[in-house]
């Protein structure tokens, strides 16, 4: 199956700075694809090039099997980082207009707006002006504007910024719904635990260049330090491969640093063979994306 988004060797230079440098990656159909990186790394520029708001200096971009033109854009939904709606318009009118700009007829756009507003619990607010809505309500309305035309590709920039836990859950469920219906989602965010939880694959950029790219689980094991988490009883240090023992408060378990040639499997076999040891819980210590992020981004700054 062909890729939903194909970015080949794309470079984009602004007057003095290189915003995106020789970037290549693919987004596969039906996946949640995360883009992360520090501020100014080139995430938004890349998104804007995928959306044909900016054009690359060199390289090519394909969206939904063709060039990113107006026709392709009708199948793409976009939630910009800077949110905004027409403040003086009634909510449903505002949403219907944005739906029309994506090619829906007025009638369809209006009835879908009403359906969505009911679905997210804003049925009482649909005739109110946008400015009369709370911030959380506006965020929900903004999300509706992104999905009203039932896009095949959804691009969301910091979708959870400024949302309370309840609304975060609501938006998260809507994104999962889209994925379950075979839609593709590109998500740019700083919230690492959301990526760990939601994303299938990720792309990390720093200073316009690709630094990490692949399956979230693969990247985590690639960066796995040679450690395991263990709960239970026993003198862990008595095992020859264990070099260091420390209690990890967050994991509520002992973190054991193993020597280079002593694998986690060997440790488990050794520990279960002896009756002096009791193991209640065992886990290979995967690093949090936060740590990888700091490690990669920090390393590049040096």
């Amino acid at each position, binding site marked *: 199956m062909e890729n939903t988004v194909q970015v080949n060797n794309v470079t984009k230079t602004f*007057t003095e700075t290189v915003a995106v440098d020789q970037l290549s990656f693919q987004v596969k159909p039906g996946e949640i694809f995360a883009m992360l990186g520090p501020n*100014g790394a080139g995430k938004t520029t890349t998104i804007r090039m995928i959306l044909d*708001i900016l054009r690359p200096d060199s390289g090519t971009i394909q969206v939904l099997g063709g060039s990113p033109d107006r026709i392709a854009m009708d199948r793409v939904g976009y939630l910009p980082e800077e949110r905004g709606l027409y*403040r003086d318009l009634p909510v449903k009118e505002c949403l219907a*207009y*944005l739906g029309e700009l994506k*090619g829906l007829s007025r009638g369809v756009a209006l009835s879908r707006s009403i359906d969505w507003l009911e679905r997210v619990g804003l049925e009482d607010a649909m005739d109110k002006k946008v400015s009369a809505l709370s911030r959380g309500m506006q965020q929900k309305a903004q999300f509706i504007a992104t999905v009203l035309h039932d896009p095949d590709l959804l691009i969301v920039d910091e979708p959870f910024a400024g949302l309370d836990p309840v609304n975060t859950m609501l938006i998260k469920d809507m994104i999962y719904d889209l994925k379950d219906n075979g839609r593709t989602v590109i998500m740019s965010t700083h919230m690492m635990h959301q990526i760990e939880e939601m994303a299938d694959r990720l792309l990390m950029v720093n200073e316009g260049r690709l630094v990490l790219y692949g399956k979230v689980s693969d990247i985590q094991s690639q960066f796995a330090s040679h450690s395991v988490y263990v709960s239970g009883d026993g003198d862990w240090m008595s095992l020859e491969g264990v070099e260091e023992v420390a209690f990890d408060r967050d994991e509520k378990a002992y973190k054991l640093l193993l020597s280079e040639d002593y694998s986690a499997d060997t440790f488990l076999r050794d520990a279960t063979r002896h009756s002096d040891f009791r193991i209640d819980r065992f886990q290979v210590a995967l690093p949090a994306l936060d740590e990888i992020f700091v490690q990669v981004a920090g390393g590049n700054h040096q």
Partner: protein
Amino acid sequence: MNRYLTIARHEITTQLRRKAFVFFAFIFPALMLGLNVGIGQYTASRMERENDLGTIGVVDHAGVVDQVLNQADDFRYFENEEAAEQALVNKAIGAYFVISDSYILTGQVDGYTLSSFPESTKDMIDSFIRENLLADQDQKVAARIADPMSITMKTIGGARELDDEDMMVHIMTPIVFSALFAMSVIMTSSYLMQSVVEEKESRMVELMISSVSPKEILYGKVLGLGAIGLMQIGVWITIALIALTISPEAAGWLSALSLPWWILVMAVVYILFGYLLYGSLLAGIGASSSSLQEAQSISGILTMLVMSPIFALAAFISNPSSAIPVALSLIPFTSPTGMMMRLTLSTVPWWQLALSLLLLALTAYAVVWLAAWVFRAGLLLTGKRLTPSILFRTIRARSNGQIITVDRSLQ
């Protein structure tokens, strides 16, 4: 897919939702009309009452008043001032006048009244004396002396007749017409600018241009707000016509106002091109400004340009074919107002009209093209100023087939 029609419709409904717009476009002119008609009716009826002094007394020491003509109902003959004064005090007459014995040499006449001496009464006395003086002349000669000429001024070739009696209309027409004209262009263009700035301020821009192209946004806005502008002009003209029809004195003014149909066609052409020129210019300014205040301060200068022919009114009236009026009717930024003033004042050589239209159309085309690109570069620069050097780079980059953006936040 004509999404600019969707944008145009959105602009129209948004504008009609604005309370301030509805007030100034419809309620305010209607109020002015009501007020005008009310005051007009009141003063007219008052003036009528005050102007009618009733019978007027005549005391003639010079012997110019013919006894036969003195039979007129409006005048009553008195032997001396005392009798006339007595009649005035008793309110048998409203006023009296005394023709002094040196009248033939000096023309001295003294008028007496209890309150004021209206102009219409003076006119009555004037024609009364004239008729008496000419009583023994041949009737035809007398009529000619009373009204010596009925002149018709024509432009060479006789394209238009300039009626001397309508001189007031003749001067008023270009002033009223061009002021209305300039106001409509400015007003509609500033709606357009305001709408662009608001779109930037509400941070809708990025979402918009992920759905439609900057060109579609520009065209949609120009179309929608142009329609709003035409509608507002329509309302004003309708209200003005109602005002003129209601007011009896204006009926003559209205009939004299009738301009040849082709001047009205020209007016429509100039108003459309003028709006395209100023509208897209102000849209570009709106797109590249960081706030409404900043945009408005720049647009103020353009307002002066549209109005400048009106400031040069004296030159237009004294000789519409002299250097300044001709220049103002050819330069694209002043030509919509300038040419309208010349067309309503005199005739314009066809080549000047053609040249003026050509220059205006070419400039409008260039400005629309430029505005579309400024629009694209400017829209994303929220809160930043588009400097001439950035603008220049944008245009140059465009000619190289690429678009550059300079905002750090875009990265």
